[in-house]
């Protein structure tokens, strides 16, 4: 997002070839090109900036070492996404991250860490907070499916390949995830509806629901 345009109009595949040939700068350029999107996947999937940072670093080092497993017929971005998604899954399993971990107490600091943009209207930040907090109430599998399909724009087939599960499973996870999110997010488009659930009120949510 803040990247300067590359000095050379080299595509990802060429950069990957250079990296495979030992060009020390090639992979770092690949990382710079895609870091924002990969970060978004990690952060949204894991819901925690510190964990997202760990997962993304693990993924990038893994990709750096395993560049030989990259096939030229795949998009570099897809390949990187898969590695990031796998890192998130691994980290989740390792840490036994609970799907409904309450947001940390120092939410302001975490929000600042997660999103360095400043000067944004408070209402907009509040809205994003709502969405992220709502996502955090989902089981990992549902959240990962929704992040890829609804937020990252992958097709169901692509998400299934990334998550290594059948397409029907992706659809089902997305459907159930949306069903859970609907009452939580409804205030965003129905602010005056008294039946709306105020902010996040998932059963496991114990704190951090108020974005103010």
């Amino acid at each position, binding site marked *: *997002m*803040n990247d300067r345009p590359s000095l050379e109009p080299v595509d990802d595949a060429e950069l990957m070839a250079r*990296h*495979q*040939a*030992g060009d*020390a700068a090639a*992979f*770092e350029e690949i*990382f*710079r090109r895609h*870091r*924002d*999107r*990969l*970060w*978004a996947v990690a*952060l949204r999937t894991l819901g925690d*900036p510190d964990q*997202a*940072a760990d997962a*993304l*670093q693990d993924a*990038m*080092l893994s990709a*750096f*070492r*395993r*560049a*030989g*497993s990259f096939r030229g017929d795949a998009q570099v971005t897809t390949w990187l996404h898969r590695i990031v998604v796998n890192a998130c899954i691994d980290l989740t399993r390792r840490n036994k991250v609970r799907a409904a971990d309450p947001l940390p107490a120092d939410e302001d600091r975490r929000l600042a*860490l*997660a*999103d*360095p*943009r400043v000067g944004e209207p408070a209402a907009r930040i509040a809205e*994003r907070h709502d*969405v992220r907090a709502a996502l955090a109430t989902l089981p990992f599998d549902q959240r990962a499916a*929704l992040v890829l399909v*609804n*937020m990252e*724009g992958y097709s169901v087939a692509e998400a299934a390949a990334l998550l290594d599960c059948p397409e*029907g499973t992706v*659809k*089902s996870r*997305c*459907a*159930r995830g*949306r*069903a*859970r*999110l*609907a*009452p939580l*997010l*409804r205030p*965003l*488009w129905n602010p005056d509806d008294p039946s709306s659930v105020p902010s996040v009120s998932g059963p496991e949510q114990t704190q951090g629901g108020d974005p103010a």
Partner: protein
Amino acid sequence: MSSTDPHLDLDVLADHLEGLTGSPERDRIDQHLRTCDRCSALVADLQGVSSTLAAEPAPAIPAAVSARIEQALAAERRDATTHFDGHQVVVPLDRPRRRRAARVLLAAAAAVVVVGVGGTVLRDVGGGGGADEASTAGGSADQSSAEPDSPKAARDSVESYDTDGDVSSDERADQENPLRSAQSKALVELYAPQSAADPLRERAGCVGRAVGDPGWQGTSYSVDLDGTPGAVAFLGDRATTKAPVEGILVSCGDEPRVEGRHRIRR
């Protein structure tokens, strides 16, 4: 959804929107939605979820996180860097084990160095390498008559030496097929620039195959020789030892040649 409640719950509607409901129920749901405002509102909510998620601005990676990862990548690169003959060897990281390969390659045996010109003609650059002393192959390269159009001359140039440091000129045996005849040896092929498209050529500089005895492995890496592209081929027996025993440094200019070779002490 219970039989007494005509309305549909969110899970059913969400599955329905994903096309996960079977045919009889699908029709029933569609029919219900045509007349039920309450359930239609739930459908709108579900669609609102999708559009809200899609509209979320992607968070930019924090500078601190990005910097940390770039440092980790740089450290990984440093960790993978090795040196040979005072030159920094660029180790490509394209395969899971390749990063380790430079350190992991093997034990001694013999090596045959063959320089190919145009990929067909071989030119001798072999030199006797003592088991424990470094030697350059330049001297013996002189005995090769570089005749780019004569494969025969090339074959004559093959030279080998054995693990114990005894140079054995087994040129006749190598004539028919240097690769095959080198069963008990390792062989490195160098290719002239014009043969860059040779399928046998590895990526590192002008080094082609680096092969040999069963169990032998050869891996080549790029080296910068004061501005001239070069390569070093590490040879060794992966099965028996964790380190390369032989390194062959070549320059990859217009006329690829061996600059030196060393037994690598472990």
